[in-house]
């Protein structure tokens, strides 16, 4: 439990203190903290998942001064995740109270789910963030480049931490 809390704090610190201040390019704004939602334990009730997503979103909004934007995106992400995981056979994982990780779900299944959710999250986040003044090409480029970098960092984190937590 302590390890899990520490893991959450570290991921949030990485997002809020490092990634949010990288300034690699205006088109690269990776949102890695959503790995916390993607890897939520599978035995959690749907309602709890929604409430955790809202809480995490509010926390990130508080530190990034974007009231409601991350919260809304996190809520969409968790509902989308519930829908996606419903299509996968995860009864054994639920019974064993496992989190949804590369180790528990398998590389292909996890990569597929994570890629869709990360892309969807960035797509929605940048849409809400620039609503009313969306430039198609810039928007597409930002979503793609940020999603790719986020997925890369998520992959690194997964392979380096999954066995330990």
């Amino acid at each position: 439990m302590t390890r899990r809390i520490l893991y959450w704090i570290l991921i949030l610190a990485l997002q809020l203190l490092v990634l949010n201040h990288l300034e690699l390019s205006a088109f690269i704004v990776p949102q890695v903290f959503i790995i916390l939602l993607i890897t939520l334990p599978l035995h959690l009730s749907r309602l709890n998942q929604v409430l955790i997503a809202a809480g995490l979103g509010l926390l990130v909004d508080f530190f990034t001064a974007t009231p409601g934007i991350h919260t809304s995106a996190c809520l969409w992400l968790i509902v989308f995740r519930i829908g996606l995981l419903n299509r996968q056979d995860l009864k054994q994982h639920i019974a064993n109270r496992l989190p949804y990780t590369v180790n528990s779900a398998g590389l292909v299944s996890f990569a597929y789910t994570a890629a869709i959710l990360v892309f969807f999250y960035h797509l929605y986040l940048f849409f809400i963030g620039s609503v009313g003044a969306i430039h198609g090409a810039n928007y597409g480029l930002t979503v793609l480049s940020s999603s790719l970098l986020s997925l890369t960092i998520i992959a690194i984190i997964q392979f380096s931490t999954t066995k330990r937590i």
Partner: protein
Amino acid sequence: MQQLLAFIEQRLHLIVFALLQVICGFLVFSLNPFQQASFTQTANSVTDAGNTMSSDVTDYFDLKYQNQLLQDQIATQFQNSTIGTLLVSGDTIELKDTSRKSLYDVIPAQVVYNTTFKANNVFVINKGGNHGIHKNMGVISSEGLAGLVLKSTANYSTVMSLLNTNMTVIPNIHGMEYYTKLLWVNEAPNVMRISGINNLEELKIGDEVKTGKSSMLFPSGISLGTITKLDKNPKSQYYETEIETATNFRSLEYVFVIINRDIDQMEALISDND
């Protein structure tokens, strides 16, 4: 009830999700200046579009009433004008006797039946004896002369159209009356002929033909049409003249019936003189 509760329990996460999204929407569009400005701009555009659409629809359904108002207004203006009372006009002097009212009452009416394809065309209006309309009253449109009342029932009247081979009017061009006849010869709708104008008269295409003072049924100065053809025949001393009627009979919708209040007194005087 149990089924309902089970349904709510099963979908509780979606209900909470929806509620939280509503709160997020409020937060996003009220606490983020950029999103707030975008929302306000979009809301204004939608409101403007809605207002315009609403106004268009309201205006459309109000057209009938506005049309009626306009007709009444035209009728009142016409009645209060000095046409047909004492109007002396010339190149430089125009005297109008505003101390007395017009000889004419004007009743607006709507055309409910109309023909233009026969030799003797008539149209029917939605006013009749109950409105003071009787046989031999003049009928005009907002564009010009339209016809003569043939017959009236309580609420309807038949009007002999200008496009009727039995209808003749004495034309007045440049203030001069020509004691010949303006006739419809059933050649084309809205085209009439005048025969018997001497080709020494200084007329030209485009001259307006009006009613004169030789008829007590219409005020003078009501447009009959404009000259569209003016041919000199070397074998004749008269012009061959074609007139395009001022009133477009194929789209005739509203007319005004002219009632000469003093026609009985005037006819009595004229018959005494004869």
